[in-house]
């Protein structure tokens, strides 16, 4: 059986911490950092491995800081 796995890469220095991406993720993958970036914003990032690469977060990110990867993997039943 094939399964889709994904991952996101956030451009931490460009993230302004608006949190719009957090609510649109169907897998609740995104959380905000405790640390701040160079501009003083808490930045977004994946907090678990449930990402499916659906692109939702990247589409709504006003600053276009999210890059999305997606691949199919075969899993044994």
């Amino acid at each position, binding site marked *: 059986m094939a399964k889709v796995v994904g991952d996101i890469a956030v451009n931490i220095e460009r993230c302004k911490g608006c949190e719009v991406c957090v609510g649109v993720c169907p897998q609740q993958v995104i959380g905000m950092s405790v640390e701040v970036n160079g501009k003083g914003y808490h930045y977004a990032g994946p907090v678990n491995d449930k990402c499916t690469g659906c692109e939702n977060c990247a589409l709504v990110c*006003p600053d276009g800081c999210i890059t999305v990867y997606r691949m199919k993997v075969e*899993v044994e039943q």
Partner: protein
Amino acid sequence: MEKTINKEQIRKPENLVYRRTPLLVDVPLSYCPGCGHGTAHRMIMEVIEEMGIQQDTIGIAPVGCSVLAYDFLDIDMQQAAHGRAPALATAIKRLWPDKFVFTYQGDGDLAAIGTAETIHACNRGEHFTMIFVNNGIYGMTGGQMAPTTLPHMRSSTSPYGRDVEIMGFPLKMTELITHLPGTYYVTRQSVHTPANVRKTKKAIRKAFENQKLKKGISFVEIVSNCNSGWKMNAVQANKWMEENMFPFYPLGDLKVDGQIVEKK
């Protein structure tokens, strides 16, 4: 088996499905956190990228928060005096009828100081595209009331809410120009959810494709947030927009291929 997949295996060029389009200049955008201008910019540039018209597109930047659009959009840009973008676009499109020309304007620009330019360009049936970002206030100058400010909506110049008895009624510019013979495609979209972002991109694509037909203005309104001006965070602002802006500015097509869409 599943557990052996690590991030390095997924983050490979062949697995890349979404990245910020290189047609957006690689600099930080000047907008506030969560502002819809950034998403609107990105959708325009994705359309230009997909159509392969980077060399053939000329954009007009307005006065307002998006005045710096020429620093962000990697295409030929001109900056117009406040509200005069449609006049400038008219000249450019008439001189270069085969270029793709668009204006990018806020509501203070397009529906207040630029009302005459907007209406006359739409009525003359010029063949360019207008992108209208409506956040209900003057964002750049500090959140003053705009013609588009909703009844009872607070702004820095209507701190008790817009009283229509004194301050008049909000202007639905998009509905107004729908009824002018010179408009060919009129639609209202938003960029706050993934589904809406996709629809906005489709609308912008259609608006650009329409320029090849030379049948009039294609007008895309994007209802957007101004969380700084509305004094909310971005997530609250998007929710407020859904609850308050959309009932007054309903999303959807108003005119398609020159035919007014009848509302049920």
